[in-house]
């Protein structure tokens, strides 16, 4: 029951993150979503994944987002209210869609017939990271590096172009 409550909470926070017109709130929402996901991962006996979710998705990524948001300008109140109205008008079907999907999953039984694998927790974290996850980590580092250049191009580039 607690797991279901956590999953519902996860969906609700994710929905708030998607619907909020403020970037800062969206970044905080992302962090909160990750925190709830971390709890779920711990409960499902996946401590390594949970630790990474907490440190990267709830820690590092929101910090990067917030530092980038700090480089932007605040919208005038009138413009903000207009954006909020536009956003609600555009995304109002989203909660309904989620409800429909939830109802569908509840009532329609998908024939899985499969036992879910239990995650392995025996291996040392160093072994997991270096032996099994080296390629993933490298790829993720590259994603972060591309993000750094994105900030450089989109924010520092503005000044360069204005010069």
């Amino acid at each position, binding site marked *: 029951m607690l797991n279901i409550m956590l999953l519902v909470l996860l969906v609700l926070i994710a929905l708030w993150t998607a619907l909020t017109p403020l970037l800062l709130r969206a970044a905080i929402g992302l962090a909160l979503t990750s925190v709830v996901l971390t709890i779920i991962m711990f409960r499902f006996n996946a401590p390594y994944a949970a630790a990474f979710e907490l440190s990267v998705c709830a820690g590092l990524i929101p910090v990067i987002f917030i530092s980038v948001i700090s480089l932007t300008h605040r919208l005038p109140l009138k413009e903000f209210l207009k954006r909020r109205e536009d956003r609600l008008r555009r995304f109002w079907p989203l909660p309904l869609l989620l409800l429909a999907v939830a109802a569908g999953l509840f009532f329609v039984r998908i024939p899985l017939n499969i036992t879910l694998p239990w995650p392995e927790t025996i291996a040392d974290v160093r072994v997991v990271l270096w032996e099994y996850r080296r390629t993933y980590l490298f790829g993720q580092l590259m*994603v972060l590096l591309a993000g750094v250049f994105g900030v450089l191009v989109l924010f520092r580039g503005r000044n360069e172009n204005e010069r």
Partner: protein
Amino acid sequence: MTYLLLLLPLAALVIMNLLPGRFRVRSALLITGAVCIIQIGLVLVHPTGFWDRLIIAQLEPVLGFNLQITWLALVMMAVAGLVSLAALLVAAALWQREFELLNFSSLLLIALIGMNGIAMVNGLFQLYIFIEVTALATFILICLRRDRFAFEGVWKYLLLSVVASVLMLTAVGLSLIFSPSSTFLALRATIPLAAGSFLPRAAIALFLSGLLIKSGVVPFHGWLPDAYQAAPAPVSVLLAGVITKATGVFALIRFVAEVTGPAPVYQVLLLTGALSVVVGALGALGQTDVKRLLAYSSISQVGYIIMALGAGTTFGLIAAMFHFFNHAIFKSQLFANAAALEARAGSTDLNKISGLGGRMPVTSVTLLIGSLSTAGLPPLAGFWSKLAVIMALWLAGQSLYAFIAALASVLTLAYFLFLQRKLFFNKLSPELSGVKEAGPLLLAPAVGLAALTVIIGLALPVYWLLGGR
């Protein structure tokens, strides 16, 4: 060698960004160019085992990434090296600002790492990660010059790309329920065991849909013309020549060849491929902008690759990869031509520019070679790959699709003849009387790639006649 193909571009990226300001731009261009050339060299000498005999090969167990080099990977990485080099030359010819050149070189290297990863990974989740690396670098590359039109183009690309990513991630998640891991090997072994059950089918359908969106095939093609047209010229070369092909088409080829095996997937591929071939060609017929016309042509040519893959045979796979290689070469060359037109005539709008044949003879001839190769006219390289595609379909018993492929070549020829007539053979617009041919740096990629198209086209029958296999 696998680690070199990932770590070398990364090392180059770090070094060139740490260099002192005075030499930084020139060094960045030289270093990036050298990385592209070394990559082509690594790929060409790999089958001889040359690199394995060197001392650096001993570092493989320490630095290696548990990646695999197949013939598919070698073709992909050769294409990535070639097209990246061409795009770099176009950037060096067109741009002067340090900010643009340095960031272009850096992002190009990140995209190269992503594409090399896509070529060599051996699992579904790894594939997804490297697709994202490449895509992220591409989003930034498109809006490198920060104009509104580029942001609009990248926004459409980003939206569809995110949908594709969600589909692919869901598929990876599902695959981990019925398979012990998401490696190609494990999936290939477990999918037949779980045949008929819901999860493997759902995972295959979701991952396939994601890759079809990334490939920009019909009906997921809406973003592609806008992104190609909005991107700065060197980025267009890269995007059309290799990036969308690596993140979409090549990943699709790997997924079908190494994971799904014989399945209803082939029927989906044949249908989607045929739709793209026809809709892309018809779309190109109505265009009045060179870059948009080439973008629609790209949709059509990707359709050929996917149809060949849908033949479901080894010959079909070879034909798909052959057309993939040729398409990367002639499409990057055509976009390099478009860059020359944009730089000299100030536009790629066919209503504004015409009759430039006498003014830009090299651009005119190379564009003609690229166009004819795309249309599949002998003896150019495109003819042989299109012939291989049609033969693969015919031999697989898909005569209707073979007929569509042959007929659509006529449409391709029609829109390229329209383009040639308008651009080079009509009366010269008075305001273009002062236009001169592009400089050697801008012409070099177009000439080099056109020469490759001709050489492959002429050498192939000779190779066959001499008994090569």
